[in-house]
C-alpha cells in the first residue's frame, strides 16, 4: 500500500469507507430497526392493516375511495376527500395536484385538443357535486353556477374594457355575468386564444358556503385517510337515509371515530373514513 501514490491511496480509502459505512448504516441499522419494530410494534410496522371476517380490507392509515365502478359515490358510505388526478387512493402512485393558487383558466376541449380543468374549476365542480349529493347548496366564491371558475379575460390587457370573455364557459353557455364595466360578456369559443387579455376572477355574491374546504380539495398524498368533522357531519343525514339508521346514531359513530388533536392543539380534529365505514357496516 505504502508505495502507491497518495491520490490512489486516498481513493482506495474512500471506496472502503463507503463500503464499511454502507454495512453500518445501510444494513445493520435498518435491520436493527426492523427487528425491534417487528417485535414491539408488529401491527404498525406491517402497515396497520385492518381485517373484516379474517380478510384484509385496507389499512387504517391509507384512505380508500368509496365509489362504484362508474365513479359515482356509494350513498351508504362516507366519502373520502377528492384525490388529485392519477393519485386516486392508489398506493403505487402517490402525490398532489401541485396546482397553484392562481390556476384559474381552463383549457377548453376543442377538436384535436384535450382540455384541462384549472384548479379553480375543479374546486367549483367538486363543490357542486357534493352539494347535490348532500342536498345543500354547492355555491362558493369565484364559482359560476355551472360548477366552473367564474373568470373573465378582459381586453385590452390594460385600460378600459372593450371586450370581455367568460373563459371557462364554452359556447353556447350563458355567461355568469351579462356585463362587465359596461361591456357585454361573451361565452368562450373553444380553441380561440384569449391569452392576450387580463385575467379577472369574479368573486360573486355568495356569502354562505355549505361545503367545507377539505371536501373540495385534494390532499398532498392522494391517500388522505381522514375528513374534517364538518364534512362528516354534512354527510351523516345521507348515510343515515341510505342505511335506514337515525341521524343521531350515525353522528354518534362519527364522534367515536373522531381523532382529536394531539395535546389538544397539534393537528386538526379529523374522522377516519375507512374505520367509520367499517363500523357502519358492522351495525
Amino acid at each position, binding site marked *: 500500500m505504502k508505495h502507491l501514490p497518495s491520490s490512489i491511496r486516498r481513493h*482506495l480509502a474512500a471506496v472502503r469507507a463507503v463500503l464499511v*459505512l454502507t454495512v*453500518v448504516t445501510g444494513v445493520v441499522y435498518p435491520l436493527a430497526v426492523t427487528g425491534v419494530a417487528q417485535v414491539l410494534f408488529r401491527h404498525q410496522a406491517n402497515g396497520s392493516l385492518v381485517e373484516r371476517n379474517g*380478510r384484509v380490507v*385496507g389499512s387504517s392509515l391509507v384512505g380508500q375511495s368509496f365509489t362504484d365502478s362508474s365513479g359515482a359515490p356509494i350513498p351508504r358510505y362516507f366519502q373520502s376527500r377528492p384525490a388529485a388526478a392519477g393519485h386516486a387512493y392508489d398506493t403505487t402512485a*402517490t402525490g398532489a395536484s*401541485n396546482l*397553484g393558487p392562481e390556476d384559474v383558466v381552463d383549457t377548453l376541449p376543442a377538436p384535436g385538443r384535450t382540455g384541462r380543468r384549472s384548479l379553480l374549476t375543479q374546486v367549483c365542480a367538486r363543490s357542486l357535486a357534493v352539494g347535490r349529493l348532500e342536498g345543500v347548496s354547492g355555491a362558493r366564491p369565484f364559482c359560476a353556477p355551472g360548477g366552473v371558475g367564474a373568470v373573465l379575460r378582459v381586453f385590452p390587457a390594460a385600460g378600459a374594457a372593450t371586450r370581455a370573455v367568460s373563459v371557462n364557459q364554452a359556447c353556447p353557455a350563458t355567461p355568469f355575468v351579462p356585463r362587465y364595466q359596461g361591456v357585454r360578456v361573451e361565452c368562450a369559443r373553444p380553441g380561440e386564444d384569449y391569452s392576450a387579455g387580463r385575467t379577472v376572477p369574479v368573486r360573486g355574491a355568495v356569502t354562505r*358556503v355549505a361545503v367545507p374546504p377539505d371536501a373540495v380539495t385534494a390532499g398532498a398524498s392522494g391517500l388522505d385517510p381522514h375528513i374534517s368533522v364538518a364534512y362528516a357531519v354534512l354527510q351523516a343525514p345521507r348515510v343515515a337515509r341510505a342505511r335506514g339508521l337515525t341521524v343521531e346514531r350515525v353522528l354518534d359513530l362519527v364522534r367515536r371515530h373522531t381523532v382529536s388533536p394531539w395535546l389538544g392543539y397539534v393537528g386538526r380534529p379529523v374522522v377516519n373514513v375507512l374505520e367509520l365505514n367499517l363500523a357502519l*357496516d358492522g351495525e
Partner: protein
Amino acid sequence: MTPSANSAVGAVLVTGTVFLALALCYRPLGDHMFRVYTGARHWRVERVVYRLVGVDADAEQRWPAYARALLAFSIVSVLALYALQRLQDHLFLSLGMPAVPPDLAWNTAVAFVTNTDWQAYSGESAMGHVVQTAGLAVQNFVSAAAGLSVAVALVRGFARARSDTLGNFWVDLVRGTIRILLPIAFAAAILLVAGGALQSFGGHHGWTTLAGGGQTLTPAGAASQEAIKDLGTNGGGVFNANSAHPWENPTAWTNLLQIFLLLVIATSLPRTFGRMVGDNRQGYVIVSVMAFLALISIGVTQTAELHAAGTVPQATAGAAPQWSGLAAEGREARFGVPDSALFASAATLTSTGSVDSAHDSYTAFGGGMLIFNMLLGEVAPGGAGSGLYGILVLAVITVFVAGLMVGRTPEYLGKKIGSREIKLASLYFLATPALVLLGTAVAMGTTAGRAGIGNGGAHGLSEVLYAFASAGNNNGSAFSGLSANTPFYNTALGLCMLFGRFLPMVLVLALAGSLARQAPVPVSAGTLPTHRPQFAGLLAGVTIVLVALTFLPALALGPLAEGLSR
C-alpha cells in the same frame, strides 16, 4: 374565542412547542457533539472501521488534505450510488423495478451525496429495497456527517492558533455517523413505527377495498429511512408523497416529531461552536439570530396560509371562519393548514427537501417565503453542519462590514479578517446565488427549460426559481408542478447541486486553514464585541440585506408579481 382565532392560537402553540423542545436540547446535544468532535479516545468499533478503511485516525490533516479526503469520499459515493441504480434490475430485493435511466440516476446520485435529495423520481415505482436502504439512506447518514465535519473544521480554524491542521476528515465522518446520527435516528425510527410508519421488507401484496377496488401494500423501510431523512436534513422520501404519505408520517404527533428532527442538530450546533471557541456566549448569539430569522419566516408563512389570499384559496376557504385552518389543496386533513406551514418552513429553513404538503399550492406570499428561506442560504438554522458554517461565513462578512464603518481592521473570535479571509467569504457568498440565478436564466431562455413548467404566468417562473434555489442551496424540496424528470433538468440541476455543495465547502475549508494558522489578536478597545445583542442584530441585518440585494429582482418577477396582481 372565535374558531379563526383558535387556529391562529393553535399555530402559535405548535410553533412554541417546537421551539421549547429545541431549547431543551440545546445544551445536552450541543455538549454531546462537543465531546464527540474534541474527545481523544476512539471507540472500539471505530478503531475497527479505521482499520478496515486503512487510515491513521490519529494523523491530523492540513486543509487541502481534509478537502481532498472529503471530495474523494463524495466522488466514490456518487459513483457507487449511480452504479447501484443502474444495476437495480440485477439486484435482489428490488421488487421487480427496472434499472434507473442514466440521466435520472446521475441526478439522484448527486442529489443524495450533496445532502440535497432532489427527487425527480417516484419512490414507490422506481426504487427497490436495496437502492433505498443500502444506497439512498446511507448517503442520508454520511452526507449529513460530511456537512458536520466541514462545520467542525471551520470552528477548529477559529479555535486553534498557529496550527497547520484542522483535524481528520475520516474521524469526523465516522464519529458523526456513529455517535450522533445513528443513536438519534434509531430512537426516532422506533417512535415513528409506534405512530404507524411502515418498517417491513416483504413484497407487494394487495387487497380488495370496501367498495370493491384494489389497493396494494408498498413495503419499505419507511421509518428507518424517514428518521435519518429528517435528522440529517436530507429530505428524500421513500414514497413520492414524501412526508405527506400516511405510511411515512402517519399522525399529527409524528409530524411534530419530524419537524423537531429537521431542526434539532442545526440549532444545537452553536452550543458546540461556543464550547469549542471557549465562549458559550458566542453560541448564544448565533442561535438567537437563527431563532429570530426562523420565527419571522414561520410567522409570515403561517399568517399567509391562514389568511388564504388568492383566488383558489378564497374559493376554497369560502370566507367561513369556522373552517379556518382546515385542509386546503395539497394539505393533509390530519395536519391542517398551520402545522403544514410550520413543516414547510422548517424544511426550507434547514436544507431539507421533506414536504408534508404541496408547496406549489401555497398562497403566493406563503410559497414566496419558502423560496426566500432557501435563498437566505439556509442559515436559520440551516442544514446539519452547513447551517453553522453558512452563518459563520456571514458573521465574518458582518465583522468586515462593521470594520469598514468604524475604520478598524475587522477581527472575529480573536482572528484577523484580512484580505484572504474576506475574499474566501465573499466567494462563498457569491457561489450559490450565481448558480441559482444563472440556472434560472438558462432554463427560462431555452425551450427545454420552459417545456417543464406546469403553471402559467408568474407562478411558472416561481416554479423554475424554486427548483434552482432548491438545487443550488442543497434543499431538495420542490414546486412539483415543474416536470423536472427530463434530461435538461436532471443534468442542469445535478450540476447545480454538485457545485452548490462542494464549492462552498472547499472555500470554507480554505478559510478554516487560513484562520487556524493565525496567532490570536488580543482583545483591544477597538474590538467589536461579538457576544452581545448588538452583534446579533448586525448579523441578522447583514444576512437579510445581502439576500434581498441579490434576489429581489427574481422574487419580484415570480411570487411578488403573483401575490400583488390580485
